[in-house]
């Protein structure tokens, strides 16, 4: 550049000037500073100061006169393109005082920008894509004004298509589908265009394909259909794949049958079946999606023929009925029926009728009666091309119009049978009409005669559809023969059937001799005695007698002889109504009707007994201790029996009874009539029941001075809550005390049923003087050993105690109900009585909080029962309780078996085979030699806890036992004998079941050696048991019990342990 000079400054010739020159190379600027003066000579030191872009100063000696430019300083800086910079300098120290200065602005010129980044392509569509790029790394000193995007189908960008944008992205929408493009971009600034960026290629997506057209299906056969179509693919919308879908008349929906390449134009479907209608549709697919569908015509496959073709005559017509096979009509191929007809077995050459609907009936009108008619049908399928026809159906039955029927089938009396008349002398004969032309019976003729006669008697021809006739007056002493023939609509009748020979007899009758109706029997057994008679005078040849209680048959006996006196074996219960039924058979042989007689038992029972169970886990047995009670005046007990029911159904019934007692027991009100300072309270026990307690305050003066009421600190509760029910199913009165009593009385029940302590006569029971009374009560205590006392207090008419009670006690054990009783004769003058019962310990140690229960307290006069408590007393049970009890009793009686009989009194027996871990239901029955019996309560006793032991019992009387527990595993399989038969015309088999049941059991367990606590039996023990000839009872800890035959025992040793396994099969006892 040239030097430019600033304005001179100084005086005279001492005018000085500052000049600046610069040069630019790229962005590097070199600045040169000059000075000059007009003076001719100068030689002094001056200072040039720089500022602006370049700063600093430089002292120098001016030695260039006469306007000669003197280069003072050269400096450089690097700037930016397009930027301007100011450099300035001022001079000082001139001799003339001049301080000239000069500034100059330097501009570094801009250039074209650098290339933008190679573009990226995204969001490719069938007609374009979005192109984005990065800005040029250098704008050349001038801002980017715009970009130019170039698209070309050639990588050389010939014939490119350009577009401008000011942003760094561009979305093209004018590209062709399914074509490869290259794209590049360049930038423009104030100077000009940059070079082209690198190029990027991309391919536009294809267009969604067009649907195939002219789709059609042609039938080859039922299992082969050929589908073809026109392809409508283009380069921009090619076919990648073709999908063939099929609709059928059964599913009524399309499903894909084939996925083909995009070049396919036909498909053969070999998966079709007969009796369908099909339609196809085809669509194409490429990467842009599916085309719409092209639909074919419908096509049918061969329909099924109708089934179950039946021909029935109706007047002069024949009504055909048939069934349309499933899937044939409706959406299916069939749309009509062809009816073909045969005359006398020869099929007509053309169809009798063509129905254009899928009807199921057709009436062949006015048929020729002289020939036979048979029909068979075809199903038409003419909805589609080609039209198809099913095979012929099975022929119908052949209708032989107006043909005589077959001989009738005799129903009764059958050949060789005995007809039981009802005393009227009339014999009803019945038969079955057997038409061959399907017409109903219109007429019949019955003939009969005595067997030795030749001539038939006849009913004559009777117009009737009835298949029975009453032959009058056939004598009983005669063998008769009868036969019948019938008419349909044909003029001629059927042949007579094979004549049936029969005799007529009246059934015998039977009358009860003993017992008579509503009899009362004073024994626990009964003998049935009846009187046989037969109007025909024949002898009795058989009999059956049954004993019933309510709806349950207790016993059945029968014989083929003339017995009329049969002792029944059932032990009868007391005060129960029974029914005896008898029927007898004569020589005919005919049975009489059942004849019933009802009787009731009422006998003196021996004293009862209670039982206590004691499980022995060493051998799995149950010890049963019988405690016989003593009742004055009762027949002597001569032996005991113990019965048991182990039927699992008893569990539910027993619980149901207990629940009924608790939830549906009678509402009993115990009214306190004593002193007023008492307070009722209510509490819930175990969340189950609510009891109302009556708090009895200490009584300072017991009414009769007997017993232990009157301690200052005793408190008693009386409630209607029953811990269990009483022995007869009645709720029991529970008495408990919460503090100890000094006189050893745990519970003191006073005037049971009323808790009344007053002596007011209205709370006493009226009695007669000088009369024998028996008092009895059931007691139960929570103590293992306890003592009970019973007293009868006698009062005169004013309520004054006139006799001290006799005292006595009975020591008891166990927690079961115990009945105690005593008998006294009322003293002279006695008008009222009171029963009082105490329950206490047998020793002097009392445990506070113990409870006792009483139930069924009674005071009976002599042998006749006069309940001590009447009306709303604890002897009442609700119907629900009674029903539950009866169900329990019935189930028990039907399943119980005698465990032991002829047992001594107060003895203990061992039952070796109780079910383990569940209750079994025992009952002790005491027997007198009247005979009479007293059945104790049904007592649930559990053989347990089992602690997981399983027992096997075998050998003599099953007394040899082994036990197993460790790692016990029991597997079972059970099956019932069954077989299946297939019958023609029935698609599913028909089962036949038998009575055989197979129950296989496999057992394995480890042996616990004898040197360990609670050892098991050894493997040898098991082997020894299995080698016994008899069968073995197997009892598992879950209450199962089976009589089994052990097949094979396999002892094994595992290290230090021995194990045993065996398999067994349950067998009949």
């Amino acid at each position, binding site marked *: 550049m040239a030097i430019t000079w600033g304005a001179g400054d100084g005086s005279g010739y001492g005018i000085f000037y500052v000049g600046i020159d610069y040069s630019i190379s790229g962005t590097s600027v070199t600045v040169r500073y000059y000075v000059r003066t007009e003076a001719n000579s100068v030689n002094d030191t001056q200072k040039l100061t720089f500022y602006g872009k370049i700063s600093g100063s430089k002292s120098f000696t001016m030695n260039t006169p006469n306007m000669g430019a003197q280069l003072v300083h050269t400096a450089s800086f690097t700037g930016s393109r397009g930027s301007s910079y100011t450099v300035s300098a001022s001079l000082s120290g001139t001799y003339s005082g001049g301080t000239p200065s000069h500034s100059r602005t330097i501009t570094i010129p801009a250039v074209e920008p650098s290339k933008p980044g190679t573009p990226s392509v995204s969001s490719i569509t069938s007609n374009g894509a979005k192109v984005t790029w990065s800005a040029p790394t250098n704008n050349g000193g001038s801002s980017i004004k715009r970009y130019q995007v170039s698209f070309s189908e050639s990588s050389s960008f010939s014939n490119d298509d350009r577009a401008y944008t000011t942003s760094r992205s561009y979305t093209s929408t004018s590209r062709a589908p399914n074509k490869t493009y290259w794209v590049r971009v360049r930038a423009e600034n104030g100077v000009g265009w940059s070079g082209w960026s690198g190029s990027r290629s991309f391919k536009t997506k294809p267009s969604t394909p067009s649907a195939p057209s002219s789709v059609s299906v042609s039938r080859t056969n039922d299992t082969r259909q050929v589908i073809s179509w026109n392809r409508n693919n283009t380069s921009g919308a090619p076919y990648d794949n073709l999908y063939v879908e099929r609709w059928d008349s059964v599913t009524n929906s399309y499903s894909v049958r084939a996925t083909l390449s995009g070049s396919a134009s036909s498909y053969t479907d070999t998966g079709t079946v007969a009796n369908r209608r099909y339609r196809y549709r085809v669509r194409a697919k490429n990467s842009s999606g599916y085309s719409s569908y092209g639909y074919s015509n419908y096509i049918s496959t061969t329909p099924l023929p109708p089934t*179950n073709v039946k021909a029935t005559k109706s007047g002069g017509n024949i009504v055909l009925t048939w069934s349309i096979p499933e899937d044939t009509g409706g959406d299916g191929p069939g749309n009509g029926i062809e009816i073909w007809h045969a005359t006398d077995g020869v099929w007509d050459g053309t169809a009798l009728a063509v129905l254009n609907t899928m009807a199921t009936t057709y009436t062949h009108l006015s048929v020729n009666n002289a020939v036979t008619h048979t029909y068979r049908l075809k199903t038409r399928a003419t909805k589609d091309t080609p039209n198809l026809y099913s095979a012929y159906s*099975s*022929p119908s*039955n*052949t209708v032989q119009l107006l043909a005589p029927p*077959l*001989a*009738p*089938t*005799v*129903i*009764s009396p059958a*050949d*060789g049978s005995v007809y039981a008349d009802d005393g009227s002398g009339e014999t009803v004969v019945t*038969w*079955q009409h*057997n038409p061959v032309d399907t017409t109903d019976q219109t007429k019949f003729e019955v003939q009969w005669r005595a*067997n*030795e*006669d*030749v001539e038939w008697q006849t009913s004559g021809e009777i117009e009737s559809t009835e298949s029975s006739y009453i032959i009058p007056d056939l004598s009983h002493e005669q*063998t008769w*023969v009868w036969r019948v023939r019938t008419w349909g609509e044909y003029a001629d009748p*059927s*042949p*007579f*059937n*094979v*004549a*049936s*020979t029969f005799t007529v007899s009246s059934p015998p009758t039977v009358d009860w001799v003993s017992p008579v109706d509503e009899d009362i029997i004073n024994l626990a057994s009964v003998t049935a005695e009846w009187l046989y008679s037969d109007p025909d005078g024949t002898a009795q040849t058989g009999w059956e007698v049954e004993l019933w209680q309510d709806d349950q048959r207790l016993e059945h006996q029968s014989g*083929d002889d003339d017995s009329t006196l049969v002792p029944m074996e059932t032990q009868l219960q007391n005060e129960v109504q029974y029914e005896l039924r008898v029927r007898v058979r004569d020589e005919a042989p005919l049975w009489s009707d059942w004849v019933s007689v009802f009787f009731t038992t009422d006998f003196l029972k021996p004293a009862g007994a209670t039982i206590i169970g004691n499980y022995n886990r060493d051998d799995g047995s149950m010890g049963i201790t019988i405690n016989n009670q003593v009742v004055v005046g009762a027949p002597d007990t001569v032996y005991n029996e113990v019965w048991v029911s182990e039927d699992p159904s008893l569990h539910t019934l027993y619980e149901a009874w207990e629940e009924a007692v608790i939830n549906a027991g009678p509402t009993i009100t115990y009214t306190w009539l004593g002193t007023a300072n008492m307070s009722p309270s209510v509490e819930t026990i175990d969340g189950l029941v609510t009891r109302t307690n009556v708090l009895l305050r200490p009584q300072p003066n017991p009414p009769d001075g007997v017993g232990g009421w009157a301690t200052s600190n005793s408190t008693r509760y009386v409630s209607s809550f029953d811990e269990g029910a009483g022995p007869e199913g009645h709720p029991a009165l529970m008495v408990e005390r919460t503090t100890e009593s000094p006189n050893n009385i745990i519970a003191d029940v006073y005037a049971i049923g009323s808790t009344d302590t007053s002596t007011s006569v209205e709370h006493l029971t009226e009695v007669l003087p000088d009369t024998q009374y028996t008092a009895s009560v059931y007691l139960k205590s929570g103590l293992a050993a306890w003592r009970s006392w019973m007293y009868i207090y006698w009062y005169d008419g004013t309520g004054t105690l006139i006799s001290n009670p006799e005292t006595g006690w009975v020591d008891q054990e166990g927690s079961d109900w115990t009945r105690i009783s005593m008998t006294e004769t009322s003293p002279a003058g006695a008008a009222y009585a009171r029963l009082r019962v105490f329950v206490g310990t047998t020793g002097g140690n009392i445990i506070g909080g113990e409870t006792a229960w009483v139930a069924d307290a009674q005071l009976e006069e002599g042998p006749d029962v006069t309940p001590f408590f009447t009306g709303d007393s604890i002897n009442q049970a609700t119907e629900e309780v009674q029903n539950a009890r009866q169900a329990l009793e019935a189930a028990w009686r039907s399943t119980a078996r005698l465990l032991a009989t002829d047992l001594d009194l107060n003895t203990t027996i061992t039952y070796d085979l109780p079910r383990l871990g569940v209750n079994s239901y025992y009952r002790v029955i005491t027997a007198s030699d009247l005979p009479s019996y007293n059945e104790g309560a049904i007592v649930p006793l559990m053989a347990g806890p089992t602690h997981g032991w399983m027992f096997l019992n075998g050998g003599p009387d099953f007394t040899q036992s082994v036990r197993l527990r460790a790692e016990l595993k029991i597997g079972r399989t059970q099956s019932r*004998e*069954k*077989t*299946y*038969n*297939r*019958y*023609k*015309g*029935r698609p599913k088999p*028909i*089962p*036949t*079941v*038998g*009575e*055989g049941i197979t129950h296989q059991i496999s057992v394995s367990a480890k042996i616990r050696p004898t040197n360990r606590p609670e050892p098991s039996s050894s493997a040898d023990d098991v082997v020894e048991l299995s080698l016994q000839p008899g069968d073995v009872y197997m009892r598992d800890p879950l209450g199962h019990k089976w009589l089994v035959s052990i097949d094979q025992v396999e002892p094994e040793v595992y290290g230090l342990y021995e194990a045993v396994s065996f398999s067994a099969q349950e067998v009949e006892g």
Partner: protein
Amino acid sequence: MSIDPSVLIGRRNERWRFDLLTLNDTYIRPLRRVVDGKFDFSIHNTIRSGGDLTCAYEPDIDWLKVRIQPWYILLDDDDETELAKWPMGVFIPESPGEKFSSTGASVELQLYDKLLLLSRDEVESTWVVPKGTDGLLAVRQVIESVTETQLVAEDLGKTIAGDMVWDVGETKLRIINDLLESMNYFSLWVDGYGRYRTNPYIEPMSRGLAWEFVDDRDSIYSPDYEHKADYFNAPNKVILIGQAEGDEEAPRAVALNENPESPLSFQNRGTWISYTEQGVEADSLGTLQAIAQRRLAEKSQVTSSFTVNSAHIPLELNGLVRFVDSEYDREAYCVLQSFSVNTQLGSMMELEMRRVVET
């Protein structure tokens, strides 16, 4: 117990019971622990019905003094009460074989119906039934001679046409059947209750229909069955020559099949095929003609037969049944020729039925 047919076509809960009877057919007690049994009924056998029975050895049974009546019983599934039952027969156990093993003893019995009593008893001297004798009375007398009394038969009052004589050693069963045939009665048989039975012969199609074996929803026959048809040697002409009395010419009866509906008829075959019997005993010429017609029917019927397995139902030999297989277009009226039953659970009875050819 009359049997409701519906209990025979559905599922079954079946049992067998075996009653021990006295020689008078009165009940003693059940025979327990029967292992297996099979019963056969056939018109081809001299003893129409019999069987085999295997049961546990019971030392207190004297097999010479008992009879056995097997019962087939169908029970209700719910309460196992009896829905239906019928007896197989009253059988005489013969020559029981005993098998002994380490696990027990068993008895294998051959069973025969009471025709055995008549077939084993032979006359000690010539047995004569004079002309004019009441035919059924003569039969009854033979039966009573073996201490049996129960005969059920329709009495047509027929008498014997000519003296009938049997030599020493002839069985009583032969005598009875000869007598019955001379009256055109069915051969003697024994029913399930142990009663001897016969009746005047009746054409098959005139007998009441005992059962229809149809392949419908109530079908009880197996899809596997056989049909045999051999018409080649079946006659269409039967010639029976009776017994001459004195110098008279022996009576003669001819039965011809001229029914155009019959494939065996002369009309359809164009030729006669004859069957001749001589010395046929008949009480009259009418009876002889009836026997000829019967023989023609019998000889025609053997030509087409079905062997079918069916659920066990109460049937009697010579009973008329209908058979229909709609799939193969087979339909026929048939008479039962034989059937057998065994006691295995669900076992089907095998029936041989001859097609009735109308003549």
